[in-house]
């Protein structure tokens, strides 16, 4: 039995008033997966019923750490704080639950009850707008509102996570990584942040580390539901989702239940690779409130190339306008890539397959940096499997890691000259490059060139000025 099915059985037992059975199943699950959020939620609800507020809050804290966007956990926290008479925190938690846009009407109702308001009397906050836009597949708008929300409530880890995810979907991996670190500081078991970090590591050629991180997520999310949801939005990635762990419930527990899970007829999350299937089929009530978001995100593949491409400025100044257009190559699905890695490697020099994911859709980045076929002669030996999706961007990062400044500069120049339509991705790479002293001057200059290409003369002037200053200091 899948852990989510067992958790669903526990919720059914809880709803039927069979606390003993619900508790047995939750304990059995937690014995196997100590931080499994749906089981922790069941235990928290049981503790709430038993008036053990402290125990319930402990479990909810763990759930919120693993799933900062879990609206139900926030709603229960709100009820518990209210019961304690801590109305400030109760309202704060309730507000957070509402802003997480719970799909379960019961959760919304519970939070509104604490707030003592009707749903239509609530203001639409930046946090809500960010979440809505993210769910609709508009990460650029989500990012804008998430930044406003972060400024308003810097302590809100769920808002940080929304910002991180928007950045991730935009392909701004360095910025995303920084936000993920902030999230991890406050919610160290955050699964979603860990999945994004695993992907970022793999994109930087540190696939083994990324895979290891992904494997560790299994302790909290044994069905890798969030990993499937996020990675399912990518056309291709290098991570391998581990096998889903099953759980065997003792016969006496199964005997007490009617033995069926109401939603078990629906395929388990583990049965489908892509997020749409996994989320829609997830029977765990604890995650029901995320379904809306999940579906929205699952619609992302194929859209992202358009999302990240900025609109050309209205007025073409001396600073110019964006000219790039999304390259029209046929994207590969994850399964296709996995099924035919050799084919991919064979084709990478002659065609321009879309490589990594929908957020990073450049087609020409697949090609080696230069006519010498640098990736053939100098490809990292520890990455034989990465050949299928080793992009020019990865190559540049690899050269930077190896302190091969001249070659790195050449590859960066190629990237800027190619005028990749994924503007933010190029921004991110060049901003990474300026952090390295030996590359700083040329990277600032290239950043200036890139800003000019993309109609941002003020930023370009600043970048050129920095390049000139760095060059001046070096000469001095």
């Amino acid at each position, binding site marked *: 039995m899948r852990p989510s099915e067992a958790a669903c059985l526990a919720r059914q037992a809880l709803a039927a008033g069979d606390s003993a059975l619900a508790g047995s199943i939750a304990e059995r699950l937690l014995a196997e997966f100590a931080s499994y959020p749906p089981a922790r939620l069941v235990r928290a609800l049981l503790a709430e019923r038993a008036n053990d507020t402290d125990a319930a809050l402990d479990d909810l804290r763990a759930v919120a750490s693993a799933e900062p966007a879990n609206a139900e956990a926030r709603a229960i926290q709100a009820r518990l704080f209210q019961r304690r008479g801590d109305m400030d925190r109760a309202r704060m938690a309730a507000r957070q639950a509402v802003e997480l846009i719970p799909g379960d009407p019961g959760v919304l109702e519970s939070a509104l009850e604490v707030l003592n308001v009707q749903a239509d009397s609530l203001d639409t906050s930046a946090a809500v707008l960010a979440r809505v836009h993210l769910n609709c597949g508009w990460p650029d708008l989500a990012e804008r509102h998430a930044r406003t929300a972060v400024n308003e409530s810097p302590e809100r880890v769920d808002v940080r996570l929304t910002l991180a995810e928007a950045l991730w979907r935009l392909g701004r991996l360095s910025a995303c990584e920084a936000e993920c670190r902030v999230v991890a500081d406050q919610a160290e078991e955050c699964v979603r942040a860990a999945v994004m970090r695993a992907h970022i590591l793999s994109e930087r050629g540190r696939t083994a580390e990324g895979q290891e991180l992904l494997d560790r997520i299994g302790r909290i999310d044994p069905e890798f539901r969030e990993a499937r949801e996020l990675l399912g939005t990518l056309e291709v990635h290098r991570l391998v989702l581990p096998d889903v762990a099953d759980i065997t419930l003792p016969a006496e527990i199964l005997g007490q239940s009617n033995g069926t899970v109401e939603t078990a007829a629906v395929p388990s999350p583990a049965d489908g690779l892509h997020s749409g299937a996994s989320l829609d089929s997830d029977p765990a009530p604890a995650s029901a409130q995320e379904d809306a978001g999940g579906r929205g995100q699952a619609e992302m593949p194929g859209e992202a190339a358009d999302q990240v491409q900025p609109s050309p400025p209205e007025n073409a100044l*001396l600073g110019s306008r964006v000219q790039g257009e999304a390259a029209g190559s046929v994207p590969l699905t994850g399964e296709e890539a996995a099924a035919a890695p050799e084919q991919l490697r064979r084709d990478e020099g002659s065609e321009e397959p879309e490589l990594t994911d929908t957020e990073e859709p450049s087609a020409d980045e697949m090609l080696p940096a230069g006519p010498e076929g640098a990736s053939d002669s100098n490809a990292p030996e520890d990455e034989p499997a990465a050949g299928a999706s080793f992009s020019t961007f990865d190559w540049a990062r690899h050269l930077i890691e190896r302190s091969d400044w001249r070659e790195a500069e050449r590859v960066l120049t190629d990237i800027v000259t190619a*005028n990749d339509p994924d503007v933010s991705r190029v921004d991110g790479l060049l901003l990474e490059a300026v952090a390295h002293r030996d590359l700083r001057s040329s990277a600032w200059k290239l950043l*200036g*060139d890139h*800003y000019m290409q993309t*109609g941002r*003369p003020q930023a*370009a002037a600043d970048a050129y000025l920095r390049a*000139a200053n760095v060059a001046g200091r070096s000469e001095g």
Partner: protein
Amino acid sequence: MPASDLHEGIQRLSGVTGAAVWRAGEIPTGDLGGRGGPVGPGLLSASIATMEQAVETMGLGEIVEIWFVTEDTQCLAMRSGHWQAVVVGGLEMDVDSVRDGLTNLLAANAEPDA
């Protein structure tokens, strides 16, 4: 015509000691007579573009040309269709004749949809 060819033509204008030229959406290329090093053409064109942006934002319209003079240098920035150019020269540079020459060069190389 490639920007490099146009740059050569501009450099031949009387009194011009340095020039940068580029199409909208491309990287400014050229040489300002060694001033500013490799960053010079980009820095000057980006700074002028910033001024253009400010002027447009204020609703003052679109700048057609900018000319300024320092204690030893004159600078003229122009746009014509897709082409944009910045030229520098000494105080002896005849700006009117450079303007005419530059206008002709840029117009002669205007692209059909410009």
